[in-house]
């Protein structure tokens, strides 16, 4: 058999020129991913801080002011102002002016000094369960601490009987960008790459240039590889840009090796570009290609473990996730970037990504018909 990649260099030459000359393709490859990264990165922030707080201080003593200060000092709450009555407090929450209301009843200090339980009322807007839970935990923490200090003063003890010494590994500040941004990079890369190749053969079909290629001695493998290579270069360049944004805009440190990161990117992008090509061999026009790409991209957002942990999913969605390259890539990204893992420790992810890439690429070349219609 002759060279199975016959015509590869000609396609490569043409494809590079076409891609670099088409400002729209370049624009859509580079600009949306960066915007998506920044938008997703800033929007997906589950760190709860600066929740607006209104206070109804009916006691007006040193002690009551002290407890308000404790709330504000955690950083979770931000004092929005004082209200004059319980009604006003409820209204502030209903109107969305505050998430949390702190109501200190009259006689708070009196009860405290008398050794009876002094009550503080905390009113929380439960519409957003995450925020509500966080506010509640903080409020409980503050009052527990306050109670223990009071008890210690009474018993004359000096130390807290039991204390937690937390040691949070890999993301000690528990910043959510550290968790989300590597995942966002996986998704953003996927959108750009799948679309890029999904359109490429379809466009030739629509323009009629595909017929011209088919009457030439070009081989299927040469055609596919020639179409894929330029986008591989562009996507890897794009990934470098995204990592730079992650490092310097979102201040996510890269614990592992950068070269491991790039190896993972190359395998992942190859699989996605092949998937795009496969769509391209099937779709008859650009609209179909777009819809087929979306069909694949949407599940990746939900089932890849990007936001929701896969372990808690019903088995069917867990299985869907197992078929998506994004699942393996995002896991790998978090391991390398956050935990400094090596490729050897995650060899299975690398093998799966490489296997998916080779399988998809072979599939496009094999099932691509050298005939029209």
């Amino acid at each position: 058999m002759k060279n199975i990649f016959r015509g590869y260099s000609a396609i490569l030459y043409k494809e590079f020129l076409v891609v670099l000359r088409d400002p729209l393709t370049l624009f859509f490859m580079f600009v949306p991913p960066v915007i998506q990264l920044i938008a997703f990165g800033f929007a997906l922030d589950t760190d709860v801080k600066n929740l607006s707080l209104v206070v109804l201080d009916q006691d007006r003593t040193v002690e009551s002011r002290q407890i308000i200060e404790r709330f504000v000092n955690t950083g979770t709450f931000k004092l929005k102002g004082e209200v004059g009555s319980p009604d006003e407090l409820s209204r502030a929450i209903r109107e969305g002016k505050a998430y949390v209301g702190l109501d200190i009843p009259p006689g708070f200090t009196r009860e405290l000094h008398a050794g009876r339980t002094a009550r503080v009322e905390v009113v929380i807007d439960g519409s957003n369960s995450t925020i509500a839970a966080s506010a509640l935990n903080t409020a409980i923490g503050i009052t527990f601490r306050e109670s223990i200090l009071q008890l210690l003063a009474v018993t004359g003890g000096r130390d807290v009987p039991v204390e937690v010494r937390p040691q949070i590994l890999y993301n000690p500040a528990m910043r959510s960008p550290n968790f989300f941004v590597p995942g966002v990079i996986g998704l953003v890369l996927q959108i750009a790459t799948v679309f890029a190749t999904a359109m490429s053969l379809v466009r030739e079909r629509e323009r009629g240039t595909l017929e011209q290629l088919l009457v030439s001695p070009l081989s299927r493998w040469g055609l596919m590889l020639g179409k894929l290579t330029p986008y591989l270069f562009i996507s890897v360049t794009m990934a470098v840009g995204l990592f730079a944004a992650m490092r310097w805009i979102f201040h996510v440190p890269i614990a592992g090796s950068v070269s491991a990161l790039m190896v993972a990117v190359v395998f992942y992008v190859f699989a996605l570009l092949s998937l795009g090509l496969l769509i391209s061999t099937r779709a008859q026009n650009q609209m179909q290609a777009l819809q087929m790409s979306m069909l694949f991209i949407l599940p990746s957002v939900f089932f890849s473990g990007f936001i929701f942990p896969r372990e808690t999913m019903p088995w069917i969605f867990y299985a869907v996730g197992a078929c998506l390259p994004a699942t393996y890539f995002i896991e790998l990204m978090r391991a390398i970037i956050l935990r400094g893992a090596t490729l050897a420790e995650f060899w299975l992810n690398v093998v799966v990504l490489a296997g998916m890439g080779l399988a998809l690429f072979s599939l496009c070349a094999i099932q691509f018909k050298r005939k029209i219609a």
Partner: protein
Amino acid sequence: MPAETMIECENLTRRFGHFTAVDHVSLKIAKGSIFGFLGPNGSGKSTVIRMLCGLLEPTEGSARIGGFDVVKQTDEIKSLIGYMSQKFSLYDELTVHENLQFYGRLYGLRGEVLTKRREELIALTHIEPYLNRRASLLSGGWRQRLAMACSLMHHPNVLFLDEPTAGIDPVARRELWDLLFEFSSRGMTLFVTTHYMDEAERCTHVGYIHMSKLVVCGAPDDLKTLPIVNPPGTKRLDITCDHVTTALQVMRHLAGVRAATVFGQSMHLLVEEQLPEQRIREELARAGVPRVDIHPMGPSLEDVFVALTTQNNGGGK
């Protein structure tokens, strides 16, 4: 003189589901000829070309180009043929020079050979002034020349052109034909589909396909002597006069006139031989058309195709 056969097909048939696009077409085209392939839209012209180029597999029948089977020996066929599709498919983002370079490389030309061939085709098509222009910015005529140059980069022996002159201005059209004659004189075989009768007249051989069937095939002059075109006891007349449309109505109602068609300032008539010219003059004079010029004439290719189509449709109109 018996020339070597370049393109040959036997009972070539293609069905799409229940629709038969090409129905048992058999052809023989000699090396160096310009074969004009005519037929209405949707009659199967492009389907035949696509089968011959190996883009579409025949449902039935076989075809050979230069002795190679188009289905089994596609590799040999590919280097033998060039194909210029209907849309002059070029890469709009590439310049003229880059398009040539790309098609050359696609066919495996490299280095010196590629450069030499490129220069030859640039000289032949006179496209030199536009070398660095993007293909998207070329006019129709230049696009077509570039498309042709691209399809010729690999020195094909046979060139298929699917409606090469559709939407092109008359000057460009004439220049393209000059090029085609030049190629033909160098031994290249050309297979051209067209809608223009004047282009068909220039071909060495023509084929006419109607409703998926090849109705006729041969040299234009031979076709014009077919009995169906020249029914016994009839003659063709060319009549030049004023008020042609009035005259046409008169002639159509005159006994002995089988067919009448307007061609600009004149009419073409198919009349029975015994109808005297004097009778025609009298009728026209009565209708207010006094000055009339009558000349005998032979059938045109259009007459040939009209006669054959009418017969094929069952004789009715």
